[in-house]
């Protein structure tokens, strides 16, 4: 069986320590979500709650803000953003990787430049534009700024470059249009890249607080992180137990999704990593 050599013990303990450091805040959150108000503010720091108040805190979290609305908004916004990004980026990356046209170089430069510009730089003009269009407080305002993801284009571009030219040629000879090639040949073979991108996109936008904070003031359209903010500011005051319970609820979908699809995600990331 496995021998526990000194090196192995050292490696394992180092890894465990690392894992512990990264997991600590999350564990603390789980623990706090089960503590009563008095215990959170007591001077002792215990991981296991003295008195289990999970039910109480979760009830508060679920009743004070409309948790289903928050989660639903999160799902809708993330799904819309992801779908639009993929639908825009895939044909674009395909054209840049496999078609010859004169502006290809220029486009590549623009994509690289686009990678360098953060949303914060364009937030103000976008806000003003949306205000003029009266689309603040809508899914449109939450989704539109992210519909073209240069990161997605860049990622898919790297992946598509590795697709053999012969495959595309064979598809053309078989009678497919360029759209047909994208839909029938490129996308079915790009799942690793698409899953990898899905992680980046969904995680980023599920957790994004900045942009919803800019364009949403109506609770109806609040995304989970924004909801938490309302929860803290208006309803719960400094009820950290309930706040942590709410946080737990909104992080749970991502954690669950990752655990369920873990194998495919890891495959996706390592595959693009190797090829790109």
């Amino acid at each position, binding site marked *: 069986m496995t021998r526990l050599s000194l090196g192995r013990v050292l490696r394992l303990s180092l890894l465990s320590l690392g894992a512990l450091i990264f997991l600590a805040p999350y564990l603390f959150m789980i623990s706090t979500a089960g503590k009563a108000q008095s215990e959170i503010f007591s001077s002792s720091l215990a991981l296991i709650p003295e008195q289990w108040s999970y039910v109480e805190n979760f009830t508060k979290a679920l009743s004070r803000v409309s948790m289903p609305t928050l989660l639903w908004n999160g799902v809708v916004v993330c799904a819309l953003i992801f779908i639009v990004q993929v639908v825009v980026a895939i044909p674009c990356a395909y054209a840049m990787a496999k078609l010859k046209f004169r502006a290809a170089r220029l486009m590549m430069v623009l994509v690289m430049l686009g990678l360098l510009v953060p949303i914060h730089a364009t937030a103000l003009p976008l806000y003003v534009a949306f205000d003029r269009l009266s689309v603040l407080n809508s899914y449109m305002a939450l989704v539109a700024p992210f519909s073209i993801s240069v990161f997605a284009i860049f990622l898919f571009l790297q992946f598509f470059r590795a697709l*053999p030219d*012969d*495959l595309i*040629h*064979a*598809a*053309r*000879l*078989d*009678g*497919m249009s360029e759209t*047909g090639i994208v839909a*029938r*040949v490129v996308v*079915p*073979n790009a799942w690793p890249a698409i899953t990898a991108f899905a992680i980046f996109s969904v995680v980023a936008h599920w957790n994004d607080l900045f942009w919803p904070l800019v364009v949403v003031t109506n609770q109806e359209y609040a995304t989970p992180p924004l909801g938490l903010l309302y929860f803290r500011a208006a309803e719960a005051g400094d009820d950290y137990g309930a706040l942590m319970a709410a946080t737990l609820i909104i992080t749970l979908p991502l954690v669950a999704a990752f655990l369920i699809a873990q194998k495919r995600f890891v495959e996706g990331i390592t595959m693009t990593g190797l090829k790109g």
Partner: protein
Amino acid sequence: MSVLSLRTITKSFAGNAILKGVSLEADEGEFIALVGPSGCGKSTLLRIVAGLDNADGGDIVIGGREVSSVAAADRNVAMVFQSYALYPHLTAGQNIAVPLAMRRLTAAQRFPFIGNLLPGQRQIRADIQRQVREMATSLRIDHLLDRKPGQMSGGQRQRVALARAMVRHPSVFLMDEPLSNLDANLRVHARGEIVELHRRASVPTLYVTHDQSEALSMADRVAVMIGGTLLQLAPPQEIYDDPAHIEVARFLGQPRINVLETRMDASGSVRFGALTLAAQNTPPSETPVLIGVRPEFVRLSPRTDGILKARVERTEFLGSEVIVHARLDAIGEAIVAKVAPVEAATLSEGLPVSVEIEPDRVMLFATTGERLRAQTIAVASMLEKAHG
């Protein structure tokens, strides 16, 4: 009537001329092998014929129609790629069905889910399935139809690729080194199969290979392309026995043809060893020329009284024959002979030998490489020399 004709096709990449005016005609049901060293532009030519790339100049006529501006899909050209280029996410059966589905079903009928509800498509799909099955049966891959390319061997993939190309009855068939990924045994077997299929389908075929034995054994005519120019297009026997250019002679034949430099004298005759050749289609002048003679027409005998003397350097035993490398005493050039094992037994390394060349099999080339017609007008016998 020629079904496929290419006229002075030119193509350059970034200023490098890759194809320098290639012209070629293929008749109904003809199998043309296109051979040439790596990088000479064979694949580029095929891509241009298929419509996957545009030529800079020249015409491509398929079945009487000039197709230079016709899209690849509408040329009705099928191609088998070196990498096979099967769709990795589809099973063998689905792969073979793709070209049929793309042609016979409308865009709406092909649409996922909704397409399956449209009228008329069920019958077409059934018909496609039947054709796929027939094709698969004739290539003996019917048991593989549910497998994906990743689950098949190289030879099986090659057949699926062949089936996908043949199933739609193209008017021209292009193959780009379809056998180069197979092991030697399978390759010889697959050669026979492709020739057989070609005979049945009788579609003009352009077959790229850099394996000369493949070209010579399979093709009706062999085209030798070197450096972007078609140097010769002729039946296998003719191109081997009567090459029009020294590069053609060098490219075909294993081991390579012996090429030795000598001089033509002012009267237009060339002396080499015991032979005297008269050049016929060139003005007589004192110029250097090249003599070419294939190893199988070089005879070595273990005696020291010949006109051309040499010393055996090395022998290679190949089973049915032996390749003997010798060095000519007079000019220090190497000469290679192909001899029967029985004869080779007498030729040990370091042995002085006399070289004799079959008089009718000597070829004369200009230093630029063009073939010069020549006739052997005299053969000095060894006895004459020995006594004279």
